[in-house]
């Protein structure tokens, strides 16, 4: 039903779009069905849990709510459901709230009391629910283009005489943002680092090794070949990987006397022919 549907669920196939109808949602007391994807953030989940208490929101037990939420999060983690950070932050906050509610704090403490924190949470839940209700009422009003219709064939559009041109601030900002975005994207392309692909490295090695039958330090050649110092790291890494492959094929021999010592290469018993090099060139474009 919704795009989130493809997401993996623990169990149960819950229609994500039955948003307002809490009953069908993912948490059931008895059998534990966990579906975080159906919730829009921790507050939404909390509101859902609060509704399950089936009492007026102003009479919910915040303590019980905190427990349920924490239990929910724990079970979600136990089945290795990935949780967004804000769910965990909320769990930690609720655990803290729980401790405040259970262990009365001495008054000198300058943080908010458990009761204050609880009523703040209850307020937020109530406010979110109120906005949900408002949204439902709003969307069910007689809407222009659905229930109520404008003049189908306007004869001419009356204009404020002050400006003959029409544009909204949104149009303006959109134009500016996409203009600047274009410019930004162009900068990114220019800045892109040059990287040697393995195929590039193989071709370059094959060309370099053309007339070399004696042991030669690879780095010297490469560094001479690569003009731009920013390309060196990439060039050496790719060339090294390509050379190992070429050794396996018998096209190169390679030798290193000790760790971090220079790497020597020379032609192997089965060097690349001119034709093979030409073919490589053609393939690399």
């Amino acid at each position, binding site marked *: 039903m919704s795009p989130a549907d493809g997401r993996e669920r623990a169990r149960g196939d819950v229609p994500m*779009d039955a*948003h307002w109808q809490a009953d069908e949602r993912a948490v059931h007391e008895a059998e534990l069905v966990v579906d975080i994807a159906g919730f*829009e*953030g*921790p*507050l*939404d989940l*909390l509101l859902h849990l609060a509704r399950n208490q089936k009492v007026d929101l*102003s009479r919910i*037990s*915040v*303590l*019980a709510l905190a*427990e349920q939420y924490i239990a929910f999060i724990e079970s979600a983690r136990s089945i290795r459901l990935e949780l967004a950070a*804000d769910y965990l932050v909320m769990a*930690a906050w609720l*655990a803290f709230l*729980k*401790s405040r*509610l*259970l*262990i*009365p704090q001495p008054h000198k403490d300058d943080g908010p009391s458990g*009761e204050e924190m609880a*009523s*703040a949470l209850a*307020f*937020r839940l109530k406010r*979110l629910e*109120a*906005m*949900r*209700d*408002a*949204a439902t*009422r*709003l*969307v069910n*009003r*007689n*809407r*222009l*283009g*659905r*229930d*109520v*219709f*404008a*003049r*189908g064939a*306007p*004869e*001419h*559009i*009356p204009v404020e*005489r002050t400006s003959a041109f029409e544009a*909204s*601030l*949104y149009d303006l*900002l959109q134009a500016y943002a996409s203009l600047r975005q274009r410019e930004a994207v162009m900068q990114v392309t220019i800045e892109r680092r040059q990287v040697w692909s393995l195929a590039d490295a193989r071709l370059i090695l094959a060309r370099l090794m053309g007339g070399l039958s004696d042991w030669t330090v690879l780095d010297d050649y490469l560094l001479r070949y690569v003009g731009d110092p920013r390309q060196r790291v990439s060039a050496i890494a790719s060339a090294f990987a390509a050379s190992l492959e070429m050794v396996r094929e018998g096209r190169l021999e390679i030798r290193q006397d000790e760790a971090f010592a220079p790497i020597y290469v020379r032609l192997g018993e089965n060097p690349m022919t001119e034709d093979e090099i030409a073919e490589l060139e053609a393939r690399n474009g």
Partner: protein
Amino acid sequence: MAEVHGDDALVRERDDAHRADELERIAEALVFAAAQPVSETYLAQRLPSGTDVRSIMLRLKAFYATRGVNLLQVEDHWAFRTAADLSFALSSDAQEVRKLSRAALEILSVIAYHQPVTRAEIEDIRGVQTSKGTLDVLMEAGWVRFRGRRRTPGRPVTFATTRDFLDHFGLEELRDLPGLEELKGAGLLAGRIPPNFHVPLPSGNDDLSDDEDPITALDLEELGLLPPSGDEPA
């Protein structure tokens, strides 16, 4: 003499009535011709100077109230719209009305009821980040606009709804938002959580209800709220 006076008055009265009818006709034509709500300023410019636009429009509104097309007020703008009770007869070949995602609708409501509101405040109310593009959708629909900047550090931009929003949802003004007064009365539209907002807590802080287990020091430790055992449990 008295008779003549009487006649004069009569003639004047008749002329006045005729004149008012003419103004009404012009106003009617101006609004009728347009698909968009027409401002009273605009109407005033088109009518002879000194015309009481508002009273003309109110007369027209009353006249059209029972008809298949009604004259509606959107702030200080006016528009003809088909009567809402006829939607059954009209809607079958209606063009698709913009379908809003649940998140977009919720954000729209938060903006409508809390305006002017910043993005951070929207996120505080919904408890979740606003995904990129959702506000964009609402702005593109022409229902939400940048309104200004809050005079607080960082000067965050504030959002508000537009006249098109009112028009689309058939509201004369923001005060017509459903349930606005009750929400205000309940303190639910206040930006801040009122300090005296009180929620009855489970009876007696220490009594656990049926569905609660007592919390143990181990729990607290696990949750990282107490140092590992060995230290005093307070």
